[in-house]
């Protein structure tokens, strides 16, 4: 069978997200598994020239570019109409993929609703379906179960970040400019008033490949810098349990868990976190989990891959010291 794939890339402010590179690579592999087909990279936004080469180096067959000031800010209603216009040039059988970033997770359901097709969120595996379309696998119930979902031809899926390898394949995919379709009135009822960028030297929690999270086991806000120091030296992002946020040690943006953020990094280091189920659902899909906790019976040790039973205030400085000694 053949399968044509449109990848809707996530970019903001002229930077291509790593998650977009991962999705472009997985689209390439999906087409290979299907035994034929083409990958289209779809870019929607404004002032996108600088990221074109970054898209091309991921080896799509074609690039569809919709570059217009009216599309500067992401807005699901407008971007869904834009994506529909891009689809017109792509022959069936086809599917639409996007990274499961905040943008992709909002964009694709709106597009799928308009198209009348299926949509699946946060896929961790994508294969061609012999009956047409694709089959994906995803976790549900905070990682307590997985489901396989069959999506017919024409459907949409977002791919979980930090899950698929980004594998550049230099190429010079031709770029086709797609004219901006009429933007519906509901999309004009919304506008971005301001944007606060996170400081440059910080890594976004949901995108980070390493997350270092701290809990009440750190005993007080004065010790929480240990979490941030370790995160920084590892090139990762700091995070916190709900207890820490509720106690006011750190803002809500740090929180991982059911009422906070969901992360699935390559490495998750839980420091002084006992591992209540509400925390576990936010991080149990991480590839490698390390727990440092004084209580050997803490539930975090059941989901962790490596455990150190001991006082975080002694262990973490030793870790930081060892890492610093290596990188003078």
């Amino acid at each position, binding site marked *: 069978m053949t399968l044509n794939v449109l990848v809707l890339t996530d970019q903001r402010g002229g930077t291509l997200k790593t998650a977009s590179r991962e999705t472009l690579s997985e689209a390439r592999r999906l087409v290979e598994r299907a035994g034929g087909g083409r990958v289209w990279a779809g870019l929607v936004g404004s002032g996108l020239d600088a990221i074109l080469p970054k898209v091309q180096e991921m080896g799509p067959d074609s690039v569809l570019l919709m570059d217009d000031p009216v599309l500067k800010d992401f807005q699901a209603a407008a971007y869904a109409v834009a994506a529909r216009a891009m689809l017109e040039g792509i022959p069936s059988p086809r599917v639409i993929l996007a990274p499961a970033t905040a943008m992709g997770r909002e964009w694709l359901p709106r597009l799928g609703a308009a198209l009348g097709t299926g949509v699946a*969120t946060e896929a961790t595996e994508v294969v061609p379906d012999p009956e047409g379309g694709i089959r994906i696998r995803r976790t549900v119930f905070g990682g307590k179960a997985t489901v396989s979902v069959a999506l017919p031809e024409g459907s949409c899926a977002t791919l979980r970040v930090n899950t698929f390898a980004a594998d550049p394949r230099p190429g010079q995919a031709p770029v086709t400019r797609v004219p901006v379709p009429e933007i519906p009135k509901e999309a004009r009822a919304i506008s971005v008033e301001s944007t606060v960028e996170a400081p440059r030297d910080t890594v976004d929690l949901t*995108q980070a490949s390493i997350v270092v999270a701290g809990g009440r086991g750190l005993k007080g806000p004065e010790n929480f810098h240990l979490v941030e120091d370790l995160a920084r030296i590892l090139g990762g992002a700091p995070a916190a349990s709900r207890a820490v946020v509720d106690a006011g040690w750190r803002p809500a943006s740090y929180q991982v868990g059911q009422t906070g953020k969901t992360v699935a990094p390559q490495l998750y280091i839980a420091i002084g976190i006992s591992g209540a189920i509400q925390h576990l659902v936010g991080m149990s899909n991480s590839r490698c989990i390390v727990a440092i906790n004084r209580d050997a019976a803490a539930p975090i040790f059941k989901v962790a891959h490596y455990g150190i039973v001991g006082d975080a205030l002694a262990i973490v400085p030793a870790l930081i010291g060892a890492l610093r000694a290596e990188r003078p």
Partner: protein
Amino acid sequence: MHLIVGVKHVPDADTRLRVDPSGTTYDPDGVKFTINNTYDEATLEESLRLKDGNPGTTVHVVSVGPPRAEEGLRAALAMGADEATLVEVGTGTELDPLLTARLLAAVIRGIPHDLVLVGRQAADDEAGQVGSALGHYLGLPSAGYVTGLEVDPASKRLHIKRYVEGGEETLGMEFPAVLSILKGANDPRTPTLPNILKARRKPLRKVPVGDLLPALETWPGGAKPTSRVTAFQLPPPRAGAKILEYTSPEEAAGKLLAALREEAKVL
């Protein structure tokens, strides 16, 4: 101002799941259900705060689910919602996220609405599609990952903060609109006994799903699900952490770094 809050009745986070004989879902037998899932509670709390701050505001909770979902709606009424509507589905009815959104949209079209709020995802299927899809079906602007909102009912304008990777955006929006709430920076209120008693007398309307499906035939996607779960599986139980033995913190640190580099290969 008329607020609509979409809620879903889901299994409790602590409950143990077993695979149903069909192999495509969990066995509801013996499963403890939450009153409402935590994402919804935060969303409901956010709406009730808007109601508290803006006299004349009403909160109408809507849900698509089996008869047991009435319990969740009653709990929402006990928290302070004014009215509830349940689109009642039989156990044999197959749903997917977008069909659920179409059913909700069909019901919401018949109710006055200035703002439609949903949690960013349900705690069970974690699809997170309903808010954005509702925006399309209702022909309204939508915004996801909302972390804070302020309403100006006089000018019918809304200012929201939303999470984006690497920052935060402030958006200006016109009513009506659909918002998916990431997390209310709030502690959901606990219903008081008088409110629980009062909730029993608040209007709760039940709409059989069969009353809505025929009208959906002409919608994109129609009256049937467009995606299908083919398998529901529980992962094998984890072996538990490999505990690193040590005599000094330095030794523990060294052993951990070696394991992460040589065994796990994540550093």
